[in-house]
């Protein structure tokens, strides 16, 4: 007698936003009703929409945002260690994006301008508590720190592009983006 087939194992997915704006996560949620269908196929590990604080073993890690401080590096390495596939989602993860516009500035100048010579300021002083992660001199794309398996461009990538990539991966296909899904704005 045949035993009933067990339901297929769900793909475990972790997501995080490093030096990004959450716009890529919003675009992910812009798959709208398809989210309900997707949840039959995947389960979430660490993500801004769950309360899991550290990434465990996962099939797919989705990274939004570049690297602007020591903590970003730590989180990114934790994802790489635990995820079979790493996806760089959006302009900032791929090339630093808009936050990287600070790369031509001297950090000291910015610090002093914002916290010491700012005309609105009350008592002043540069924040320096040990609880605050060290900012890096430059904003970096994530592939400079870890190996990245897929890059999905856009600011943000459209919901349809994210959907196409995820469904291709779920079906075991090499992801390909058709006309109109590959864009950089």
């Amino acid at each position: 007698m045949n035993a009933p087939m067990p339901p297929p194992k769900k793909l475990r997915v972790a997501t995080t936003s490093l030096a990004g704006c959450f716009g890529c996560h919003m675009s992910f949620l812009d798959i709208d009703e398809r989210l309900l269908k997707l949840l039959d196929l995947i389960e979430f590990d660490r993500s801004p929409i769950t309360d899991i604080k550290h990434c465990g073993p996962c099939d797919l890690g989705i990274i939004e945002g570049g690297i602007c401080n020591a903590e970003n590096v730590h989180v990114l390495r934790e994802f790489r260690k635990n995820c079979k596939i790493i996806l760089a989602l959006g302009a900032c993860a791929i090339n630093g994006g808009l936050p990287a516009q600070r790369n031509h500035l001297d950090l000291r100048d910015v610090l002093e301008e914002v916290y010491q010579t700012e005309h609105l300021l009350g008592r002043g002083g540069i924040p320096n508590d040990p609880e605050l992660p060290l900012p890096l001199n430059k904003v970096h794309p994530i592939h400079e720190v870890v190996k990245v398996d897929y890059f999905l461009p856009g600011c943000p990538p459209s919901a349809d592009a994210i959907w196409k990539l995820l469904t291709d991966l779920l079906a075991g296909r090499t992801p390909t983006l058709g006309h109109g899904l590959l864009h950089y704005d």
Partner: protein
Amino acid sequence: MSFELETAISPDKLRRVAIDPVSRVEGHGKVTILLDDDNKVHQVRLHIVEFRGFEKFIQGRPYWEVPVMVQRLCGICPVSHHLAASKALDMMMGVKQLTPTAEKVRRLMHYGQILQSHALHFFHLASPDLLFGFGSDVAARNVVGVIGAHPEIAKKGVLLRKFGQEIIRMTAGKRVHGTGSVPGGVNKSLAPDDRAELLKDIYQMVAWSREAVGMIRNLFEQNLAEYNEFGRFPSAGMCMVRADGAMDLYHGGLRARDIDGNTLFDHFNYGRYWEVIEEDVKPWSYMKFPFFKSLGPDDGSYRVGPLSRVTLCDSIPTPLADKEREEFMAFDGGSVTGATLGYHWARMIEMLHAAESIKDLLHDDDISGHDLMATGQRQERGVGVIEAPRGTLIHHYRVDENDLVIRANLIVSTTHNNHAMNTAVREVAKKYLNGREITEGLLNHIEVAIRAFDPCLSCATHALGQMPLEVAIVGADGTVIDEATRDHRGLTHEISGIRSIP
């Protein structure tokens, strides 16, 4: 304002517990709690841990790029920054009055944004705490759990958000980071086909928004004592109101009341905001601490956002939301108007107001008009203020004769709430954590208090800071890509450029 529990006397002797990262909020924050051997709480802080520096790097850019650049502060409420920057640059261009079509298209975009942002916050982020309990199982305490246990509620949340996002796409060109608003007006109006499409669904959206207000009201009725007292503290408040005192999320004057309800200023011209607001800095957070100048940094903190707007306005100019406001103000003798969790109720009333306002605008033929741009006498500076989903948002620019930005100041909604959020989490820590064994469920109570404010932490990061350690980024091939350390003055500097590790 009390600074109790902000700074422990002997932090070295205490045990540190951290909530890192704060989840189900937008942006990057953490909470640290210092406890003694008896688990008595001595210090609680909400830290904003990321730097961005937008105000600095937009200097030198042509002003017309600004509305498109600064919205990249935040992917949840990009329209707020897009519109606040446009309003500031309207003033800089000397445009005193937009064309009717331009103002209505911008308002439609803004109400679409309020609708989608409030729906996202309530259904996708905060509702798991309210539906399952603050200390419920962490594995199900998220939107996936809500979809499993309450699929009808979750589906309405998804579709309300979708409707708001579609309005943004139709008016701005894209759902996230569009380009519709430009200094002096808009670059397109609502296409007739899009208008017809939205009109088909708007009545359903109004009905679902009403249901959402009923849902949070029921939750309050069922848990009144807990919801009323949770993270409660007396607070001053600020918001923008229309000339007649009614709620207006797009334009008006500033109104502020102190903790006793006395008016501090009213219908104040936001073009001179610096006369009433100043910002303080604390060493443990990149987010500044604004305060009312007249009350000073120690007593002048306040809160903004839905709770301040709904309680400080005289009325709401759409009938269903106005009726809900009256019931909210009168509920349990007015007790909820000062409750931290009252934010959720006020937020749903605003979502209903946004849906009703969208309905009215869709019935107005100006929304598809063709007169899009206004002009005026060029000025040197401009200030734009909008009531963003999370509260009063201030953009201020100076532009030189070459049309390049030479100065920028942004005070974002969440920054106004910095003190209030810290006070709320300290109240919760005192009541729920003191003397008890710390569990995940108890720690989530701290996050429930933060989530009530719907903070947008990446909006709230302006500046750079420093940590007393060295760090090196080593690339996949073993190359050191970046290093940083701090010098004796606490300033970051680079040790060297790119070099190889032997």
